[in-house]
């Protein structure tokens, strides 16, 4: 990891990312702060907010990406959560969905459980891990301008891509409604896969 990497803010970058989306990309917000900040950036029908199942952000995103190969899919994941499921990076590299982008918010902390230090705050370079797993397009984001350039792209091709971002220890700024069935239903509506019916008006 280069020394010239700026520590940024997850809520700020999430807003920048969401504002750049042009093609109804699906965004999977990982458990905790990743989905709180996604919700706070302004709800959109193609957002899925994880209220549990820590570690499964990338697998869920990959399932969506395989099911809808023409749609760009973005996973927003924390360092603690991806450390729980590093094996999924190998699966992503092997299957290589071209429409999958993974963003890792890395503050080297389990921020939400009391700021305990994580392995990425001590010894582990998540981009090196991802490259070792076989995701060649894995990069550290150096600053906000670099992030803006990296997200100014089509998400339905060129993947899998992993962008790792050093962030501060600020907590999430929003609170997603705690209704998994509603979240799933709305997400499927956003993807055009829900059961059609007059109930939705």
């Amino acid at each position, binding site marked *: 990891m280069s020394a010239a990497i700026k520590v940024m803010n997850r809520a700020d970058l999430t807003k920048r990312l969401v504002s750049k989306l042009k093609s109804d990309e699906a965004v999977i917000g990982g458990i905790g702060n990743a989905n709180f900040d996604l919700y706070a950036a302004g709800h959109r029908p193609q957002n899925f907010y994880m209220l549990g199942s820590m570690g*499964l952000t990338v697998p869920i995103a990959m*399932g969506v990406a395989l099911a*809808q190969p023409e749609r760009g899919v973005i996973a927003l994941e924390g360092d603690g959560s991806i450390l729980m*499921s590093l094996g999924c990076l190998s699966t992503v590299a092997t299957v290589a969905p071209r429409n999958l982008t993974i963003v890792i918010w890395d503050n080297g902390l389990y921020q939400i459980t009391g700021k305990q230090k994580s392995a990425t705050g001590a010894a582990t370079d998540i981009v090196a891990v991802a490259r070792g797993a076989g995701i060649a397009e894995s990069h550290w984001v150096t600053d906000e301008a670099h992030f803006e350039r990296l997200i100014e792209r089509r998400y339905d091709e060129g993947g899998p891509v992993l962008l790792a971002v050093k962030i501060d220890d600020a907590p999430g700024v929003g609170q997603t409604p705690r209704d*998994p069935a509603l979240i*799933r239903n709305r997400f499927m509506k956003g993807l055009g896969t829900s059961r059609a019916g007059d109930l939705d008006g």
Partner: protein
Amino acid sequence: MAWAETFLNVLKDNDIRLVPYVPDNVLTPLIKGVTSDNFFQPICATREDEAIGMAAGAWMGGVKSIVMMQTSGFALIPNALASLTVPSQIPTLMVISERGTLGEFNIGQQLVARTMRPVLDTLGIAHHTLTDEATMPFIVDRSIKQAITTQAPVAFILSPLLTGGNPVAHAKLSA
């Protein structure tokens, strides 16, 4: 093997296409079957909960899938079922090859197998133990349709009575 072919035909009839799995000896004929047939998209996952997450994402994206695992692998997924698929009302289809019974040599397999049905019952997940090829298509077909219609997971447990069990285990017991 005939039972595997019969099982895969039912999956085809129900348009189950994505098959995330973690390898297992008893599942080999199913894995070979989905790997050699372009109808299916098999994906070898590194862990069973990863496979459950993938199947959940695929369902929301409009593709039906079934997750294949061994008994010990099921023990890795209760959190994924309890915090993702059950509360989200996602019909996760699972096929679990049953170890730990009817001729097991590994004490760990024997112990972990005892956790499987109590966990499924606790989570309110329907499960069917498949013991013979004759009744299997009816059970699997109806249960897949019920799972999808009611948006609830279902588990099919492959008994050694159906599959013959793990050949390695059998050899060790007989040695």
